[in-house]
Each structure stands twice: as C-alpha cells, then as structure tokens.
C-alpha cells in the first residue's frame, strides 16, 4: 500500500512539474547544443543563422567545443525552429543533419565534414 501511495505522489508531483514547465514559457530560455563547424567563418554563419530566427536574443558558438549557447524567447520560437535555421545554412547539429545542398553552400575552408579541412584548422 505504501508503495502505491508513493507512486501516486510521485506521479502527482511529476504531472504538476510537467504542466508548470509547459505553461511557464520563459522569455529568456537558456540552452546549449552542439553544432558542427571548424572556424571563425562558421562561427559567424552559425550565430547569424541563429539570430535571424525571430525570438533568439543571443547566440554564441565556441569554435573549440562546438557548443552553441542560446538565449531565446520561448513564446516566439523553439529549439527545433532554431536548429532548422542552422541546418539551412549548412551546419549539422546533433539531431539534425544539413542537406547536401545546404552543406555545399558553405565556404570551401568551412567544409567541416572533410577530414582534411578539420586537420588544417587544428594546426592553427
């Protein structure tokens, strides 16, 4: 009996938490995700694509760690939309892959899928 009570309680708390999370849309939501790229030109492209998504307030991509730190208004956009804008300019995220057409548009030195390009940038 005790365990059933506990499960009930947990479920209740969880449901409550989930509803709050869904309803409290944060206007300064912070997230970070991994975006593939190799250089400062990629940085410019990734950050620009993110900021061009309406609702994104700040986007800072780290060349070394490939981490993109985002702050965005949840009422206006969501992570998927942002990822789509990034993929559209040719950069892969962990969950979304850029189409070959999009990938082809990046500058030759930014071809991050190419091992040689990756190696070149490591030397710098």
């Amino acid at each position, binding site marked *: 009996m005790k365990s059933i009570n506990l499960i009930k309680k947990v479920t209740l708390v969880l449901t409550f938490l989930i509803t709050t999370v869904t309803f409290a849309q944060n206007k300064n939501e*912070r997230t970070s995700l991994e975006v593939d790229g190799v250089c400062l030109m990629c940085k410019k492209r990734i*950050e620009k694509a993110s*900021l061009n998504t309406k609702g994104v307030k*700040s986007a800072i991509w780290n060349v070394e760690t*490939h*981490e993109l730190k985002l702050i965005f208004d949840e009422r206006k956009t969501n992570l998927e939309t942002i990822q789509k804008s990034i993929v559209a300019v040719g950069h892969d995220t962990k969950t979304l892959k850029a189409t070959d057409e999009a990938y082809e548009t990046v500058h030759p030195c930014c071809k991050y899928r190419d091992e040689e390009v990756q190696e070149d940038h490591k030397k710098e």
Partner: protein
Amino acid sequence: MKQIIYIILLLPLFAISQSELKGTVFEDNASKTPLPGANVIWYGTTVGDVTDFDGKFTIPYKKEYNKLIISYVGYKTDTLLISSPKTITHYLKPTSELDEIEITSRKKPSSISYLSSQNVINVSSDELLKAACCNLSESFETNPSIDVNFADAVTGTRQIKMLGLTSPYILIATENIPSIRGASQAFGLSFIPGTWVESIQITKGAGSVVNGYESITGQINAELVKPTTDDKLFVNLYGASNARLELNTHFNTKVSDKWTTGVYLHGSTLNTKHDVNNDNFLDMPLYNQVNVMNRWQYTNPEKGLVSFINLKYLKDDKQTGEIDFNPETDKLTTNNWGSEIDTERYEVSAKLGYVNAELPWQSIGVQAAFSGHQQDSYFGLNTYDIEHNSLYANVIYNTIISDSRHKIKTGISYTYDHYDELVNTTDFNRTENSIGGFLEYNYFNLDKLNVTAGLRVDRHNLLGTFVTPRLHLRYTTWEKGVFRASVGRGKRSANILAENQKLFSTSRNINILNTTGAIYGLDPEIAWNYGVSFLQGFRVFGRKGEVIADFYRTDFKNQVVVDYENAQQVNFYNLAGESYANSFQVELHYEPFNNFNTRLAYKNYDVKTQFNSGKLERPLTPKHRFFANASYETEVDEGESRQWKFDATYNWLGAQRLSSTQNNPIQYQLSEYSKTVATFNAQVTKVFSPKFEVYLGGENIFNTRQENPIVSADNPFGSSFDTTFVYGPIFGANYYAGLRFKIK
C-alpha cells in the same frame, strides 16, 4: 546519435571478435566526479560510445584507430593518442574554466581593430615597454598617431597632439573617468607613472558620447594595472645619464576570496643641473615626485559583481630657470630668473559593475570620482596658483533590443568643477556643473556592417543646454578591407590659463579681448570633427602586413584663439572667421620575417586659424612628419624564457611656423620657420627569466639639439624674453638603464 545506439547494440558482437578499449571519463574539478553522457569516438570513424552513469565506456579497438575524441557539451573536447588498448582515465575540463588557461600566443604590441566601428588603436603593455620611460606623456613616443613635443624650454613638460591639435582638445581618461583636464591639463600626463598603465586605447576622431561632450579630436583612455591581474610583486628601477632616477614598486595581495588589494609606489627625482647649450638656463627642471596609489578590487563572479576603489596621492615639486637661481634668495626678484611649481593632488574613485549572469547582455556600471588639485607656482615675476576640485559621476546601463546585434548603452552623468585661480594680483573664480543623459545605439550584423550612433543632451551652468551627436560606421568592403567613417560634435570651456601655462615663462602681457562670455569673458569652444579611414590587410611573400590611411578634419564653429603673433603680448579672443585642422596619415605595418616588425608612417597637417593679423598656420605644427619603428625579438624556446628584445624609432619633423617676432629688437628676431628635426631612440631588453629583466636604451641618439631655445636668455627680465619657441630637443642624447623584477 542513431549510429552510436546501433554501435552500442552491436558492441557484444565486436567484443567477441576483437579487442576493446575501456575507460572512465571524469569531470576535471576538485571532486573528480564521473561524467555520464560524454561522447567517445574514434577519430575519422563512426565507431563510438557514450559514457554510462559511472562515466565508464567500452569501445572496440583496432590497430588502425589511434585518435580517440572525447567530447561533451560544456566541456573542452580532447583528442587522445592511443597506441594500445589499455584502460583509460580521462578528465574533461569545463569550458567555463577555459578563461583561466594561460594562453601565451604572441600578441601584437599595438593593433587596430578590424571589427570596431570606431578607429581605435590599442596599445598593449608590450608596446609601452618599448620606451621604458617613465610616465604617460612619454608612452606615445612609439606611436605615430600622437605627436609629443615640449611645451616650453624651461618646465620640461611634454605636450601631446592628435590630428594637429593640442591635448585640451583630446579627452584623456583613466579607466573611462576623464582625468587629465582643468588644472592638471599642463602637467597631468607626467602624473601617471608608466608602470601603472596596463594598456592605452586611442580613439581618433569624435569618440563615444558615453565619456562626455568635451572630446573634439579624439579620446585616450589608460587602463591601469589591476590587483587581481598584476604581478604580486613588481620592482622597476631606472637611472639615466641625465641623473634622472625612478623607482616603481607594486605589491598586490589577496585579502579574502573576493577582495584583492594593491599598493603602487612611484618616486622619481632629478637633482643635477644641466646646461649643455650654455644659455645659463637649466635644460630640464630639478624635481621630486612621490606618487602613491592604493586599489581595492572586489570580484564576485556568482553574483556578477566587480568593484574597484582607488585612492591616489601625488606630490610633485619642480624648480627651473637660471643655473644660479636660488629660491631662498631669488624668488620673485630680478636677481636671477627662476621658477618653482609645486603640485599636490589627491583622488578618490569608486566603480561598481554588475553583469546579469542570466542575461549576459544586461549590465550596469556606476562610477564616481573626486579629485582635489592644488598648484602653487611662480615663473620669474609671474605668480600663478590654481586650485581645482572636481566631482564626476556616471551611471551606464547596457542592454539589447530584440537580439544581441542591437546594443544600447544609456545613462546619466554629472560633473562639478570649482576653479580658484590667482594670476599675479587678479583672482579668477569659477564653478561649473553639468548634468546630462546619453544614449548610444550599436548595430553589428556579425558581418560587414557595424554602426554606432550616439546622442547626449547636457545642461551646463555656463555652456547652456546643448546636444552632442556622434556617429561611427565601419564597413568591410572586401576581404581584410575595412572602411570607417565618423562625425561628431564637441563643446568645451577653455581653461585658458591652466592650458597655456607656458605663457607665464615669457615677458608677454596677457590680454583677454572679449568680455561678454561666461568663461573669462570668452565663449565656449565648439567644433565638428569628420573622418574617414581605410585599413587593408595583405600578405606579401607569405608575410602579413597592413596599410592604414586616414583623413580627419576638425572644423571650429567657435574657438578661443591663443594669439602669440605679437612678441610682447598673448591675446585670447573668440574666433572670427575660419579655423580648421586637416590631418592625413598613412601607415604601413609589415613583418618581413618572424618576430621582426616594422612600422612606417607619414603624416600631413594643414592647420590654419583666422588670427587678428590674418589667416595663419597654427604655430609649432609641422606640416610633414615621418615615422619609422622596427622591433625584433629573439625566438623563445619552449619552456625557456631567455630572450632579447630590440626596438628602434626614427622621427622626422618638417619645418614649423614660429609666431611673429617682428617687433622684437633685431637680435631677438626669429626666422619665420624652424629647422627640421630628426631624432632616433633605441632600446635593448634582455629577459633572463620570467622574474627578471634588464633594459638599456638611448633617447635622441643623434644628439639633435635646438639652438637657442630661449629668446633673450641673456636678458630674462627684458621685454623680449620668451621660452615658448620650442620645436626640438633641448638636451642632447640621453642614455638610460633599468631593471624589472616581478613575482607572479
């Protein structure tokens, strides 16, 4: 992701047929906690694993695999070289700690930003060390954008110029608090010891509205050393062949985990009389200076707070004039011409900065500074005392509109200045106060365009209510090509006496020709500054270089004209007609081989003012200037610190117009233009260890000297006596040596 999952599913199969690599990934912090969810992948393959709850992973191993990449968002990605399938323990560093890693890549000693909308030249501490001596006024010797010359032949004061106009038209700030102004205008640059300066930012042209409305030709900001980043102990000793001695010591210590304090002491002295040109006058003053600063720094990264509290005290005593001048018996008599300038100054300032940790674009800065300045002096038979108390307060709020490409800076500032001056028997008292609000908008599209538009409105008790607009624009025209433009207005009250103290070391009568204005009977100075510049980076023979060309024009709507055209008078009056300064400069930087940097610059000035006697070139302003600098540093082997550094600077100044001396007796008349002047400085530094280095240098090695810098030196109480016709060095070559000792 999917691939990794497949691989995990397939893992047992591989495990049977092949050897495998096992390991654990930890977070590199004090507690060394295991890191679950980290990606482990063989470089160039899709073979990988994700660490489990205990940070453990297992990954198939083949001989061809040799690079293992471990990554996790928020941590630094590491690549490990694997030669055999041994068990691995690895620590990943959080990226937030990356800043603490010391990066020892070479930085350029002086650089112009490719990105900023303003034409800002950043002078790092490396550049400052190129001229080991000794205070802020001497820090610009290796910079072609700033001209350094002597103000007069007796006080040894160096005066700086930018875009053809003297320092009162430049806003000079320390850590963004306007500091060299009012009473300290003449000698203030020598009151900031060189070792206290961490870096200098020189903005050519209008500059930002945030620091006030006074800047006309540009802004110079000196960042001082900070207790948390400066060496724990720093000692600098300097001695020169002219018997100038200096001692600088810094002590920095942590008081608690949030508070750090630093005590900075500077003492300098020169007590030997020099008269190499035998004009019976000292070539440079005898002086003693004691300068003390105490800084407190509070840092609280969790709350996003940084604060500084600074206390400064200065005492500077100078004596100059004729060799036999004895202040005890000759002060204010005609026995011998002599001068004493005693200055005492104290400053208290505090800063508080808050950055919202949640929203990094939001920050607030509050600054307040108070200074008291007292100068008691006499020059021959002229007495000049000035007391200046000043208060400055400023609040800045930074935020963004919609996203981080649109930045806003806004705030209010308040200044209060009280001047009490005594010139011989005349008292001048003046109180100025102003309150103003400013707004600066910056748009940077992360690519080609960067625009800053600023506006401020100030209400000043003597200058009235007025608007100060400033606009800066940067555009990347093509690869490594940067175009900049700026326009802005500046307004200021001219402190005619404090700024022109050299006039006291003459026999001239001082006349103020206007009477209706609010400041000494004169009107405020108003000028517009327009500028364009172009920067092009290039590669020649595989070596980097850049060319910078800029043109600026300063157009005065009103100016307080300082007229020396009558050799027996100095007249101050409001401008009637045109006054402008055109400056064109072209500069080339190139590194012909590793660690060898060269800089060449040519500058052309066209500075004219409508004087009562006609439209004339501004006196003592060379039309042409040529500058060359070369520096070389020997390669430092890894783990070593022994190094040699060489630096040499050549400067050539074209002829400078001298104000008219027509109504002097024939023996005291000067030619219309000065001779040209060439000087050469060089310095060698030997670094023995990170703790110890020694330097040796020479100033004016060509031993260039201006003959007869003092007019009527043989009759200093006659009506033609004048020490202001200085266009070149008075003292010849000077050699110096010094050492620096530091403990990090």
